[in-house]
């Protein structure tokens, strides 16, 4: 909200400059977001002038040469008028005008100089409203601003500094009003805050004297069909209204506060709203058919033309105000064109109503129609504010429009004057304030602060009994709310910095969190970059991943109100994010990509699930490799991202946790059918997922494979390999505590063995066979070479195995190993293997 500082000072004027006021308001809960300057940068050189003569310029049809008394005189005391060339059509002798002298600086920063206009020297400029930023509309056709008869308080002697007459140079505070403080959506509410924050006196409320009256009104009627959505509806009738432009002082205030002046009646509604926080709406009563307004729900698809000329389609949750000819406005949002105040308006019906905030919020959102009024109503105003605004507006209608106010006020609704809620009383314990804040505040000071904020207090045993003012009744309902009031005015700023006792607190990461960090670090250590993708994805992702209609990954969580269709489901896999990032970088940066993401994936629960969480979420680690694994080098071949490159990385990850892991050929729709596998591990002893009684339990962690070429090409990628595992399960199969394994002083005995086998026999089968045949003496066995070719025969291949034997108590010899080697060879023979060479 924008508050012109001079307006604020009219009600509370602490001896502080704008920056000190900013600081006090900000530090007591009314944050000053910005300080704007409105109007001229400095007031020097702007004076009141009196036009003595206005003669036709000898050489220019549209210019006049004026002699203007600007208060200057010679040593004899004789006036020395300034010669000013003026192009405004309305300039005339006898006018009192605003003059900028040479040296004055205009709002756009231009410094005025004495200038020759068609041969005549002009010593300044006669000003229009827009040149002074008093009027924000297009320049008035009538030209210069004439100050005569504008009810300005000051004596308009020539030479009077203009700033004494009009707010031409104004600081404007832009305030952030928190949603619990709709009472601060008006200048007077902010003045009360400033009063509490600084101790400077607060002037009486501008509505404390009401020239209007209560009671029945003749000549107009209001029917309220929706009391639940309109707690109070008030209206007053004004006769003999003269529509005219507002006086400059009012235009200056509205413009500085960000409102465009229209005419005196509309400007009065805006002025009263800005001052009280309560929106108003003026109807031309002669254009209200039947002189009767009905407040009702709109019909579905009902159309209303609003003031801005647009036709809006409503629904039955929205409210309209209608007369005998149909709807005239959308309640709380915007008036209608038909009953608008016009230049010929003579009678005004001034509506001030209280609307149900959430209903206005919804209507405003559905119609995409936000106004100063709706943004106030939706925060929840108090019914008392209706008459605040009526009082302010009534005085101005009399003063500025020459109107007479008809007796009485239409006042209907559940919260009309007769039925406004009583004021709540709350107990406040003196000691409780210190217990919450950690800072003592005496009961006297507490009472003083609350009093400044319009709360009534009286002492009672151990503290205060506090009565809540009407405008705060929604926000302050409990002792803790009173403590907040005290804290923000005098507490928060003075707080010491202490640390909590932290009884029994020992900061630590969980096992799962530590596993997650270690897994990420393992990938970073292997040269991968971590990405962070969007949780939202496109439902088409599921098709691009070639998922079958009943695939598990299609059990997605969809959003009711996504930002767009392409972000309308929660990702069931990290693959989409990884592929998107890979495509982005291959297109812009480098054909080689090695990335991973560690993040949540989401699925809907299966029917009959037993989880107590709303959806099936787990933390996954996904890796994507494409192109070369390392930069092109001057020495040696570089490795390409294929299945085995991904598997090498997977091994680096799983062996980081000392896991007994394996892969098993398996198909995923998005992976190359011949180059994909499931990742399985045996849960470690002591881990969460270890089988009962120490039995081994095999757990499937995820998948690994090369991407299906159709999937890769959908993201413009060449060959790419990927794996993804469930880090929650990974944590489950790892043991938080590692137990020591003894080792002896003796070196291992190493032997190699090459065996020719049918190609269908997998490496995993061969290794498992060797391990089973060799028993515990075999410490390790690895495949270190694979050969296919004529030498080994069609359909067969040779695997070279590196065997390592060791026992705890001695150095093994070839003789020791002979029998074991025999068993290995025999077991391999059963697989169809024969020793090579």
């Amino acid at each position: 909200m924008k508050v012109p500082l001079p307006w604020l000072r009219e009600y509370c004027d602490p001896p502080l400059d704008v920056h000190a006021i900013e600081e006090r308001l900000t530090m007591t809960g009314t944050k000053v977001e910005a300080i704007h300057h409105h109007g001229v940068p400095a007031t020097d050189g702007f004076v009141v002038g009196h036009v003595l003569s206005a003669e036709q310029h000898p050489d220019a049809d549209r210019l006049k040469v004026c002699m203007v008394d600007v208060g200057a005189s010679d040593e004899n005391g004789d006036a020395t008028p300034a010669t000013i060339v003026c192009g405004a059509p309305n300039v005339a002798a006898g006018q009192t005008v605003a003059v900028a002298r040479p040296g004055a600086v205009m709002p756009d920063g231009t410094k005025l100089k004495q200038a020759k206009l068609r041969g005549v020297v002009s010593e300044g400029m006669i000003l229009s409203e827009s040149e002074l930023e008093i009027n924000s509309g297009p320049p008035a056709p009538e030209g210069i601003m004439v100050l005569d008869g504008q009810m300005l308080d000051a004596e308009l002697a020539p030479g009077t500094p203009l700033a004494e007459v009009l707010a031409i140079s104004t600081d404007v505070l832009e305030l952030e009003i928190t949603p619990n403080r709709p009472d601060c959506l008006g200048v007077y509410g902010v003045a009360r805050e400033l009063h509490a924050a600084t101790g400077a006196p607060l002037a009486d409320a501008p509505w404390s004297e009401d020239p209007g009256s209560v009671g029945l009104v003749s000549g107009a009627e209001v029917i309220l069909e929706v009391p639940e959505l309109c707690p109070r509806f008030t209206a007053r009738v004004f006769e003999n209204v003269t529509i005219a432009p507002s006086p400059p002082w009012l235009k200056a205030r509205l413009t500085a506060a960000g409102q465009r002046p229209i005419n005196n009646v509309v400007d009065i509604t805006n002025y009263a709203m800005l001052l009280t926080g309560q929106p108003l709406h003026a109807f031309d009563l002669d254009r209200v058919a039947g002189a009767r307004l009905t407040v009702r729900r709109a019909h579905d698809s009902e159309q209303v033309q609003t003031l801005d000329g647009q036709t809006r389609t409503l629904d039955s949750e929205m409210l309209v105000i209608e007369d005998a000819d149909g709807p005239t406005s959308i309640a709380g949002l915007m008036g209608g064109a038909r009953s608008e105040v016009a230049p010929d308006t003579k009678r005004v019906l001034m509506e001030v109503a209280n609307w149900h905030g959430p209903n206005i919020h919804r209507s405003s959102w559905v119609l995409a129609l936000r106004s100063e009024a709706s943004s106030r109503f939706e925060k929840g105003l108090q019914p008392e504010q209706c008459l605040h605004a009526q009082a302010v507006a009534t005085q101005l209608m009399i003063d500025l429009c020459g109107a007479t106010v008809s007796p009485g006020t239409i006042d209907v609704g559940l919260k009309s004057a007769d039925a406004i809620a009583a004021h709540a009383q709350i107990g406040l314990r003196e000691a409780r304030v210190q217990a919450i804040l950690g800072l003592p505040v005496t009961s006297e000071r507490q009472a003083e602060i609350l009093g400044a904020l319009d709360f009534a207090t009286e002492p009672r045993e151990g503290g205060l009994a506090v009565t809540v003012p009407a405008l705060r009744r929604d926000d302050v309902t409990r002792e803790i709310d009173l403590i907040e009031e005290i804290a923000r005015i005098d507490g928060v700023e003075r707080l010491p910095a202490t640390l909590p006792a932290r009884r029994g607190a020992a900061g630590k990461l969980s096992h799962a969190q530590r596993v997650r960090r270690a897994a990420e670090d393992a990938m970073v250590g292997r040269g991968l970059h971590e990405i962070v993708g969007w949780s939202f994805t496109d439902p088409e992702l599921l098709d691009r991943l070639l998922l079958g209609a009943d695939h598990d990954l299609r059990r997605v969580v969809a959003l009711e109100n996504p930002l767009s269709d392409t972000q309308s489901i929660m990702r069931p896999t990290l693959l989409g994010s990884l592929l998107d990032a890979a495509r982005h970088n291959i297109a812009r940066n480098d054909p080689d990509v090695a990335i991973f993401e560690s993040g949540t994936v989401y699925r809907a629960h299966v029917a009959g699930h037993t989880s107590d969480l709303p959806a099936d979420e787990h933390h996954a680690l996904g890796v994507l490799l494409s192109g070369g694994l390392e930069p092109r080098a001057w020495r040696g071949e570089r490795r390409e991202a294929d299945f085995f490159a991904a598997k090498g990385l997977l091994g680096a990850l799983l062996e980081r946790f000392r896991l007994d892991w394996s892969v098993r050929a398996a198909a995923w729709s998005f992976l190359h059918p011949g180059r994909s596998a499931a990742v399985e591990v045996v849960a470690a002893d002591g881990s969460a997922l270890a089988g009962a009684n120490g039995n081994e339990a095999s757990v499937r962690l995820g998948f690994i494979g090369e991407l299906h070429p159709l999937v890769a090409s959908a993201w413009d990628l060449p060959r790419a390999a990927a794996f993804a595992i469930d880090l929650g399960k990974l944590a489950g199969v790892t043991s938080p505590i590692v137990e020591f394994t003894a080792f002896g002083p003796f070196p291992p005995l190493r032997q190699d063995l090459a065996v020719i086998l049918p190609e269908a026999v997998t490496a995993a089968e061969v290794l498992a066979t060797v391990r089973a045949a060799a028993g515990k003496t075999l410490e390790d066995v690895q495949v270190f070479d694979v050969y296919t070719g004529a030498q080994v025969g069609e359909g067969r291949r040779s695997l070279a195995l590196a065997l390592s034997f060791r026992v705890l108590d001695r150095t093994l010899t070839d003789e020791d190993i002979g029998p074991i080697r025999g068993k290995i060879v025999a077991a391999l023979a059963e697989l169809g293997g024969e020793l090579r060479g």
Partner: protein
Amino acid sequence: MIDRIQELQGEAESAIAGVGSSAELEELRVRFLGRKAELPQLLRGVAALPVEQRGAVGKAANQARQALEAQIQARTDELSAGELQQRLLADRIDVTLPGAPPQPIGRLHVLSATRRELEDIFLGLGFTVMEGPEIETVHYNFDALNHSPTHPARARTDTFYVEDDTDLVLRTHTSPMQVRAMEAHPPPLYVVIPGRVYRRDLDATHTPQFHQIEGLAVDEDITLADLKGTLLSFARAVFGDERDVRLRPHFFPFTEPSVEVDVSCFHCSGKGFLKDGSRCYLCKGEGWLEVLGAGEVDPNVYACVPTTDANAPGYDPEKIQGFAWGLGVERIAMLKHGIPDLRLYYENDLRFLEQFA
């Protein structure tokens, strides 16, 4: 005879001194000490000398031979060391070629690195790290956090709802875990909750997903001053030992009193302007940077925590009190590294990713 020995020794010594390579030295050794050389022959001939000369000549010849052998050895060592050095110097590589194979350097995403840094700071302050669901019930996300039934944040404009289930939202903050944590554990409770959150906003300063770290400390006597001390420790750990914090009153439905927390600007040391007199771009001349929202937990929140076996004796607002905060990881990283646009975090351009961690 002895003169001849000395003559030979002198001749040999000067030759050894003048020799330039191990090959020449070997020639000298053969010439002076080889089987057919004069000195060994002299030694072999000692037996044929008159008895009275044998002792002196033998001794002189022996000494000469030993001296020459030692000199040759010394000269050999000298020469071979020099020759090795020569060979090594000739065996020169271009040390400026890249290492092979090149080892790619990986990095954590700046959001992960920042989140970990913050987690570690709060771990050091005695907080345990907890996590919770991102797809959350309206109860935990709004109701239990004292949002009125008509609170605007519940609107479809602001919050993502799950299709076909009006009770499920994408959590709009990490705060729902306050209640879940209290349901699962009795007081005292000191936890931080990092995680991803969602709001329906997209522009240069808002992305529809972002990351928060919630803090929650509940005990018998935790005050707003304790919140200030805790966040002062945090601010100094993240932004430097010279930093100060200030609390500004604010409003949140689930804390009372509520504050926004500012850290003194580390770019201009809180002055608002730089050494050259220009306005500090980081704090925009304010001297303070807003980093998070916080407050004392609202009693209505405790009232939403049922007492169960898991959290007995439960959370009675008259017996326990504490504070909570929610900070934005993106915001901290943005301030710390001068990252100009939130959307960079989720674009995952390698030129961005390579810069941090």
